[in-house]
């Protein structure tokens, strides 16, 4: 009897691991920046390059930093979600226009709607490196003390917004 039960148990254990493996996304690398201060930066604004935007200005506010680009396909997928979020005025969304040509970026926003309070232009991707960006779009939830609380890798969806991002934002705003 044991001759059959042992291999069966081994097979079931293996199946469970493989099944879990099916639902893991190897592209979702946990960020070491969660719980750490958002890296400081100062970049020219996309629409007004003569003005700078720095992360330090946002102290005292809970905000979202959305890394996007006009060449990024998944960004187009999340864009309507961000536009709808911006209309609700729950949390300010700032953009980090990553490795983009300003004219392309402006044309894209002009056509699809601009959900951002403003976007900072990271033309060389250096700020992106400081934030550990490896696949656009990525979205950071940053609290009043300037600490990164959450990072969404890949497009923001209605589901991730309602289940994770917004509850977290509300909780952080109460503090």
């Amino acid at each position, binding site marked *: 009897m044991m001759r059959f039960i042992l291999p069966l148990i081994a097979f079931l254990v293996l199946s469970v691991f493989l099944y879990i493996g099916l639902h893991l996304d190897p592209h979702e690398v946990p960020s*070491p920046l969660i719980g750490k201060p958002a890296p400081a930066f100062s970049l020219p604004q996309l629409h007004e390059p003569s003005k700078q935007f720095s992360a330090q200005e946002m102290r005292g506010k809970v905000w979202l930093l959305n890394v996007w680009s006009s060449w990024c396909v998944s960004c187009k997928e999340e864009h309507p979600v961000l536009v709808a979020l911006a209309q609700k005025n729950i949390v300010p969304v700032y953009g980090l226009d990553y490795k983009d040509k300003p004219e392309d970026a402006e044309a894209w926003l002009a056509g699809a709607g601009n959900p951002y309070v403003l976007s900072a232009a990271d033309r060389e991707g250096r700020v992106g490196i400081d934030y550990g960006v490896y696949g656009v779009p990525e979205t950071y939830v940053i609290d009043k003390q300037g600490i990164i609380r959450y990072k969404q890798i890949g497009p923001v969806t209605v589901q991730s917004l309602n289940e994770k991002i917004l509850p977290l934002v509300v909780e952080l705003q109460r503090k």
Partner: protein
Amino acid sequence: MKRLLMLLLCLLPVFGYAGEAKDMAADPVLEKRMIGLAENLRCLVCQNESLASSHAELAEDLRREVREQMKKGLSDQEIIDYLVARYGDFVLYKPPVKSYTMVLWFGPFMLFLVAGGALFYQLRKRRQSVPETDLTPEAQQRAAAMLNNDKENQA
């Protein structure tokens, strides 16, 4: 005409060589050091390629970053720490021994021990279940004769 076409077709792969990595540093010593370091780092975009061999844009940016830090005089370890602080241990091809990498590092040895133990136990049990039979002297002679006979036949 056909032959010429064939010859031309055979020459086609000549144009298929891989392009040189872009923006080589002017300093070959530094470039070599950068490549040496980048070979042990993972490109986060194409995860099974090293930072040295990847053509992803992020990899190019990170190579530029590594080069600049080397020019500033940072040590290899300081540069690795810089990247780990941003991208996590995942950038390292050789993960550090930590509480959550214990299974990764020692799991195979544990499995080996368990499997080895199980095999040892099974073999011992089997030896016990097949008792050595005591042969009578006559039976032993017969067996010896049969075995000898067998050997002669083979020879």
